[in-house]
């Protein structure tokens, strides 16, 4: 059952007034697959992400996650169903500590409320200790455990990117959306990132969909690549197929005039 899609976009369209940002795009992410969504600047990749996470409503079409339509659901509900994301420009809770950032990610998996801190203190303490323990495990996994008490905004850029992934992992996602995870990284860090993404997929048993401009990284890691340009899907396939696709070459390099 390798072909079972965990996420499926069916002719998804997004219009902002008269502008069609995304035009009937199809996309499939299989279980445990690492997929990529690529395209030139302004092609509509981030808009697609925003529709998957519920930040934008789709104009037409359908987004299906685990066999269920998630159109019209609120972003926090979609997170609870199992889709987590990171951001192109890092958006951590900067003045909270590294550990607290990850612990915040456990929000939808925990229950402590405003009243049972008084009426069920034992349960709350247990849940708190458990959350801390699990958060520390994630930090250890990402190699961030030595900076756990630092302010999130004060750690190095590459670490902040990892921390965002950590916060996303805390929501125990079935699908992880990475928005340009390699932006601002040097080639050594990129190599490590590829390893980390694979390791995350295998350890946490999830699917990954990434938007990325670094072609070497995308080609090296993705099992399936979807290319969009001007809001339309122009190609879909393995790295090799994409590299030899004329439309893709044209979109990136322009049409030859001879």
């Amino acid at each position: 059952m390798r072909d079972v899609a965990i996420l499926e976009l069916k002719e998804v369209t997004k219009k902002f007034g008269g502008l069609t940002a995304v035009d009937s795009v199809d996309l499939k992410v299989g279980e445990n697959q690492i997929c990529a969504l690529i395209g030139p600047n302004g092609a509509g990749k981030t808009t697609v992400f925003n529709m998957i996470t519920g930040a934008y409503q789709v104009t037409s079409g359908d987004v299906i996650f685990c066999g269920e339509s998630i159109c019209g659901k609120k972003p926090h509900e979609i997170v609870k169903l199992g889709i987590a994301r990171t951001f192109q420009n890092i958006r951590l809770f900067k003045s909270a500590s590294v550990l607290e950032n990850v612990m915040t990610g456990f929000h939808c998996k925990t229950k402590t409320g405003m009243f049972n801190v008084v009426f069920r203190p034992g349960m709350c303490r247990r849940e708190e200790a458990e959350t801390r323990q699990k958060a520390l495990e994630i930090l250890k996994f990402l190699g961030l455990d030595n900076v756990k008490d630092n302010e999130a905004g004060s750690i190095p850029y590459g670490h902040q990117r990892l921390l965002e992934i950590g916060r996303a992992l805390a929501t125990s996602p079935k699908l992880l959306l990475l928005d340009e995870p390699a932006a601002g990284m040097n080639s050594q860090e990129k190599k490590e990132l590829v390893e980390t993404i694979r390791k995350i997929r295998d350890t946490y048993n999830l699917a990954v969909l990434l938007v990325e401009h670094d072609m070497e990284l995308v080609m090296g890691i993705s099992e399936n690549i979807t290319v969009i340009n001007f809001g339309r899907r122009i190609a879909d396939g393995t790295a090799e197929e994409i590299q030899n696709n004329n439309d893709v070459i044209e979109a990136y390099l322009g049409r030859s005039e001879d």
Partner: protein
Amino acid sequence: MAKKTNKKSLLAKIVIIAAIIIIIPFLTPNMYIMQIVNMIGIYIILGIGINVLTGFTGQLSLGQAAFFGIGAYVTAIMNTRGGMQFLACLIGSMVITGIVGAVLAVPALKVKGSYLALLTMGFGEIIRIVMINWTPVTNGTAGILEIESPVIFGFSFDTLTKFYFLIMVFVILGILYEDILIKTRTGRAFVAIREDNEAAELTGINVTTYKIRAFVLSAVYSGIAGCLYAMMIKYVSPDTFVNNTSNIILWTAIVGGFGTVVGPIFGGIIMQVLPEVLRFLGDWRLVIYGVILLIVILRFPGGVYPYIEKFIDRIRRRKKSDAAGGKG
């Protein structure tokens, strides 16, 4: 760290705090000063209340006096007209301010930043005008007189000194509750909303309901303060719950320690003691008061508490390093 030393230091803390609380009334020379001390207590409750909403959740409120006033009026009305005792009035004040907090949250959810500040300020004005004009209920500008002292299980808190201990109970409970809550999932959700609204939502936090919770919680704190105020002063009138009071509440949190649990203790002391100490300046009093506050926030951005904490930390570390022979 070993659990034993933790428990020991906790016990030491409790003893020190209890000693300070018990000693204060013996050090106050007269009832005038006792009343100021009690007002500090009430403003501490107001300060920790606004800190939930503004300090932790990042929703600027310039209308806290409205919740304070509603709490005071509910108690005044329940006591003088309904003949109800302290605990019933307290619960009444908490429930009504909580509901009003939730109602205010609905329009407040749609705006942020300076617009939210204006909206809450407008809300404060509306409540003040209602207090003045809804004469059959609020007795208009004349206010409500002859509120009784609180009686709990036959014990009457009829002097300011007795009242002081009642206020301290609520200050301690208020601080303890916030301290516990802020370290749980709810507190982390508040902070996440303050830091990045959208990222909070995409981390699985229902931003809408948590903002409402912050509004309700801060309103309830103000309602408790209002109830205590009404029963201490025995008189409520719209003059008390003006815009200036909202500002002082906000300043109590800012000067003491924005987004800290115990900061408002220091804010309350500074905001209440300073104008009294400066009385010798006559007409210049409020000018100098304002200047000093400005200097405080410029010198201690984020409030004085974080600096006090750092200072204590440094001393403690020095002691420890002395004891451990220079390690750490």
